[in-house]
């Protein structure tokens, strides 16, 4: 399963839900078994489609949280209060149900070790999902380039994959959290939004030419990208993926 | 309710681009094109025109309908009284480059307004403020948000959505959503 997916036909298929995993109060991971899955690249997503009884259809894209090396396909979904799709996925789906999906999709917001680094990932809220795939992929490989994740979350309770990131930190990845709304009294991580000062502290200097991936809500992504360009990073080394609203 | 629609208690915001925020000091409304003399109103002049408050149902082509919505604005009949024309069609145009086309008969005789209040309050930018066209008997994409004028035309000139496959006329009661319906 470690081979990169070969682009070909992109057809809708019904994937069986194997398991649902509570990640945080608002986020759930869906472990899926699509009948026809040929592997993927870290950073890619799937499109999910729900069809109501009256034929009404709603489609959403979800980043793949599992790495190409993993046995199972995993998506992580954040439940949005007035979402059309997410509440169904987090509240109604049960193991054994089928979910219509197509993928893997995406060729821009992907990372493989052959692309080099240093690899800098900056996540706002549920924008961290594709970076779980990238870090797992990085961890399973030769780890020739340094990898660093700066992950912004409202509270510690909202941080997804905390144990996972501790494990990948043991392999040498540098995972840094910043909490923006609330933090424990003994909090040793960063506090406050990702701004120029925090980026100056965390990002490699421009002359080291990091490959930078930014993912999260549009306003977050654009503010971070702008700050990095102003700090001297090459726009061509910065890749962005904007999500719809998240809780952060 | 027209076929295929469902009622929503919300007021969904659909947008094809960034929300314009034209200040009223910079706003004007123009009737032009195939008219004897084009006419423009500044915001002050416009809100001094006789206005009506109407309660109507609105139907979006994306299937939501909202019943009993209340709007205040100037009847398009009042605006058309200011020009002479033999044109049979018009293109409504907006800030942000949006256009939609209508037969002139569909905005006459109490069928259309340029509305600047919704539910008794100034129309918010996300819903088309300072003013939008209101043509409730057709699908709501014809009720151009951020409207700045009507250009009268001798021929029918398909607007933005009409050019991209939506129905040229858009009667919700005949479910005219797409070309060919």
């Amino acid at each position, binding site marked *: 399963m470690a081979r990169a997916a070969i*682009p070909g036909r992109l057809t809708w298929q019904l994937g069986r839900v194997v398991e649902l995993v509570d990640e945080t109060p608002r986020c759930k991971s869906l472990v899926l078994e699509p009948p026809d899955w040929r592997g993927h690249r870290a950073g890619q997503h799937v499109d999910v489609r729900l069809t109501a009884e009256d034929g009404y259809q709603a489609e959403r*894209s979800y980043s793949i949280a599992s790495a190409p090396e993993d046995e199972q396909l995993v998506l992580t979904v954040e439940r949005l209060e007035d979402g059309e799709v997410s509440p169904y996925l987090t509240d109604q789906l049960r193991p054994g149900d089928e979910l219509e999906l197509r993928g893997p*999709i995406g*060729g821009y917001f992907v990372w493989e070790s052959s692309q080099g680094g240093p690899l800098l990932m900056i996540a706002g809220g549920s924008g961290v999902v594709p970076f779980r795939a990238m870090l797992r992929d990085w961890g399973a490989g030769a780890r020739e380039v340094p990898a660093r994740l700066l992950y912004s979350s409202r509270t510690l309770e909202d941080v997804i994959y905390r144990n996972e990131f501790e494990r990948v930190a043991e392999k040498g990845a540098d995972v840094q959290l910043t909490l923006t709304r609330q933090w424990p009294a003994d909090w040793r991580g960063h506090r406050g939004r990702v701004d120029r000062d925090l980026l100056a502290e965390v990002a490699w200097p421009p002359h080291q030419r990091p490959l930078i991936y930014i993912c999260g809500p549009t306003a977050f992504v654009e503010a971070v990208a702008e700050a990095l360009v102003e700090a001297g990073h090459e726009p061509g080394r910065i890749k*962005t*993926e904007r999500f719809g*609203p998240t809780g952060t | 309710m027209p076929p295929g629609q469902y009622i929503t208690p919300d007021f969904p*915001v659909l947008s094809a681009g960034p929300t314009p925020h034209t200040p009223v000091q910079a706003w004007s409304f123009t009737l032009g094109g195939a008219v004897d003399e084009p006419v423009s109103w500044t915001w002050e002049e416009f809100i001094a025109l006789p206005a009506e408050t109407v309660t109507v149902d609105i139907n979006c082509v*994306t299937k939501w309908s909202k019943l009993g919505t209340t709007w205040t604005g100037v009847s398009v009949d009042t605006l058309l009284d200011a020009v002479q024309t033999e044109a049979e069609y018009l293109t409504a145009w907006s800030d942000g480059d949006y256009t939609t086309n209508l037969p002139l008969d569909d905005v006459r005789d109490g069928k259309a307004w340029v509305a600047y209040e919704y539910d008794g309050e100034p129309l918010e930018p996300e819903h088309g403020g300072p003013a939008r066209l209101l043509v409730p008997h057709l699908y709501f994409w014809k009720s151009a948000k951020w409207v700045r004028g009507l250009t009268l035309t001798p021929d029918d000139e398909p607007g933005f959505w009409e050019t991209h496959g939506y129905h040229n006329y858009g009667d919700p009661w005949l479910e005219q959503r797409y070309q060919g319906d």
Partner: protein
Amino acid sequence: MEPLDGNAIAGPLFEHFGAEMTTTIGRCAHCGTRAQVAELVVYMRAPGTVVRCRHCGNVVMVLVQIRGELRVDSSAFRMEQAPGES
């Protein structure tokens, strides 16, 4: 809702062009700015999806679902590569 970017329409574009399109480079027909599809500004809450140039804001692509069939008008995005090349 804030606009997204070309990553959000990767699936529909693959469906239409038969290839992964997010890294395809094209020029805005209005202002000439070059960009990858992933960098374009995407508005998905409309009777269709409207894609705009990040530099000048003009429309470069429109995607509409008509009776279950996807129609893509990308005439204002002058692609420099054939779909699938990048």
